[in-house]
């Protein structure tokens, strides 16, 4: 297993190199640069802009710029944010905890709800309860996050006032206290549910269908022939088989935790990586933009690896070597 993981990680290096070329090329292809994005050209001396371009190396040949960027990147120097004038790692580090908090809350809500609804519907298929859950899920699948988000803010923030509509924490609470964490949880709940909406629906249906399929398998008949109770057949024999595909999704979900949710974070003005990503595009903050893209790419590769390893852990038929 270790050897397998090591080999896969080595295999990521050429992949990341290729990704870096694409990321850099795309960034260069975008119109404008940080100077045209940040500075109002009408009240700035064009000569100054030219000097700054020269100083920042924007006039160097593109391959030279690329290798300078990659060279610094692999040494852990991700550059300075042109917007915040501080290190990129610091900018990202500030937002990362918020995004992780949102992602984890969302995953926990998703898995709990999908598990409860999926196992119920799978055990009692084609009943009223199952049809009700299916109906809910199709509704969930067909409402895009930006609609669900706005609607949730309208209903739960403005009309009912249960949850705050923006930010990640109340102003004025001291960091580290219980009150602080409760306030964060309070802020994160609504965006987390909206973020999980789509996944809840698809995971529930997925689990339901897998349970139905497995309940018709020969090994279930064997378990019945052994005198195993119906409850145990569903909770042990079938569930242990049906949970396998879901667990492998966890690999991708871990990535999703960090990649953040561009739309949801923006709607809830939640200061996470997704929002940062969108703002960086708007202000042509290329160092932040490229670092984030590289980070997301790396995490996607890592998520694939985690999914494959989890597969090997939960399914005895699959051996990794």
């Amino acid at each position: 297993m270790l050897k397998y993981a090591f080999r896969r990680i080595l295999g990521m290096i050429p992949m990341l190199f290729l990704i870096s070329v694409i990321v850099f090329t795309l960034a260069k292809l975008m119109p404008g640069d940080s100077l045209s994005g940040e500075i109002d050209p009408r009240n700035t001396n064009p000569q100054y802009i030219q000097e700054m371009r020269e100083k920042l190396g924007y006039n160097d040949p593109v391959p030279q710029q690329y290798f300078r960027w990659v060279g610094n990147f692999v040494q852990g120097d991700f550059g300075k944010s042109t917007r915040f004038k501080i290190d990129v790692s610091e900018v990202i580090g500030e937002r990362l905890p918020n995004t992780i908090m949102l992602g984890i809350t969302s995953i926990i809500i998703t898995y709990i709800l999908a598990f409860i609804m999926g196992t119920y519907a799978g055990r009692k298929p084609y009943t009223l309860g199952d049809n009700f859950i299916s109906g809910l899920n199709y509704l969930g699948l067909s409402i895009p996050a930006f609609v669900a988000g706005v609607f949730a803010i309208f209903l739960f923030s403005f009309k009912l006032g249960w949850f705050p509509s923006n930010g990640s924490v109340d102003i004025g609470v001291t960091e580290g206290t219980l009150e602080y964490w409760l306030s964060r949880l309070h802020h994160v709940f609504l965006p987390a549910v909206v973020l999980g909406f789509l996944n809840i629906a698809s995971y529930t249906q997925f689990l339901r269908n897998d349970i139905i399929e497995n309940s018709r398998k020969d090994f279930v008949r064997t378990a019945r022939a052994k005198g195993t109770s119906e409850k145990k057949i569903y909770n042990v024999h079938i569930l242990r088989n049906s949970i396998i595909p879901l667990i492998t999704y966890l690999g991708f979900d871990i990535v999703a935790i960090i990649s953040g949710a561009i739309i949801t974070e923006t709607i809830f003005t939640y200061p996470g990586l997704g929002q940062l990503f969108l703002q960086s595009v708007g202000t042509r903050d290329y160092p932040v933009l490229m670092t984030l893209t590289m980070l997301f790419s790396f995490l996607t590769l890592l998520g694939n690896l985690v999914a494959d390893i989890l597969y090997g852990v939960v399914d005895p038929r699959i051996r990794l070597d």
Partner: protein
Amino acid sequence: MSEKKLLLKEAPLLEVKNLETAFDIDGTYYNAVDQVSFTVKPRQIVGVVGESGCGKSVMSLSIMQLLPKGVGKVTSGEITFDGLNLEKMSEGQINKIRGKDISMIFQEPMTSLNPVFTIGYQLMEVLFNHLKISKREARQKAIALLKSVGISRPEKIVDEYPHQLSGGMRQRVMIAIAIACQPKLLIADEPTTALDVTVQAQILELLKDIQEVNDMSVILITHDLGVVAEMCDEVMVMYAGRIVERTDVDTLFYNPKHPYTTLLLGAIPKMDDEEERLSSIQGIVPSLTNMPVTGCRFANRCPKAMPECFTITPELRETDPGHEAACLLYETSKPREGVNK
């Protein structure tokens, strides 16, 4: 022979009376098992033979109450096992009997075991279901059981997963699970069909040994008459959901009554046969939705069919002592009263 006569006097272990099992096809129920009655006595091996689709498996699943839910159900008849009415039992009550007093092994050893649990877990599960036993004892018993079904290195196999074993090994594991609680009755539904010929012989040998050691009764479902000759005391021939002939194994081979039995026996290839073509029975078993409503269900394939065969339904009657057949050729004999009297 004297031993067999002794058997006949004993009270039956399993008594099936007028069993009818129906399957739901597009909202209508069709009988896959029709008016089946038979008994199994202690220590007896009863063979059930017939082509595929004759209702052999459905009949055995009916006894075990293992019919697929919502699709198949026992619509009438009585199944009495050891004085208990199986068809009236609740799920909880039948679970106390399944795996303990009646066990079953299936045709498909490749899919009958749960792929994500170890052999040991699946074997110990049946012990935990029915016996008060500690984990350590169960494990030791599981290893002993694996050994008793002829698995070498049982200490290692007990921690392995089904996909690591061959088909023959898996069927041995299934047998070990089935005999774990020393059942009184074992239903073996084509236990060797999916296996290699050499492995088939070993598995049958094993079943016979276990039957003798444990004093079990066995219902052996097969479409291999060679297996019947080898293993069984009594044979029932089934066709299209009904029993068409029933007698002891010697009589069946030397003096078959029903034309279907005769044709089945004729389909066995012989070593000294000069003929190159294998003989077969014309036509196929009618499907559930296509069953003849009146008359003998075999009539349209029967070489001896008479016009009245298509209108009069033959009943299972005693033609000779201990020999019953359902065929109009023997209708002159007196109809039987009840089951196996």
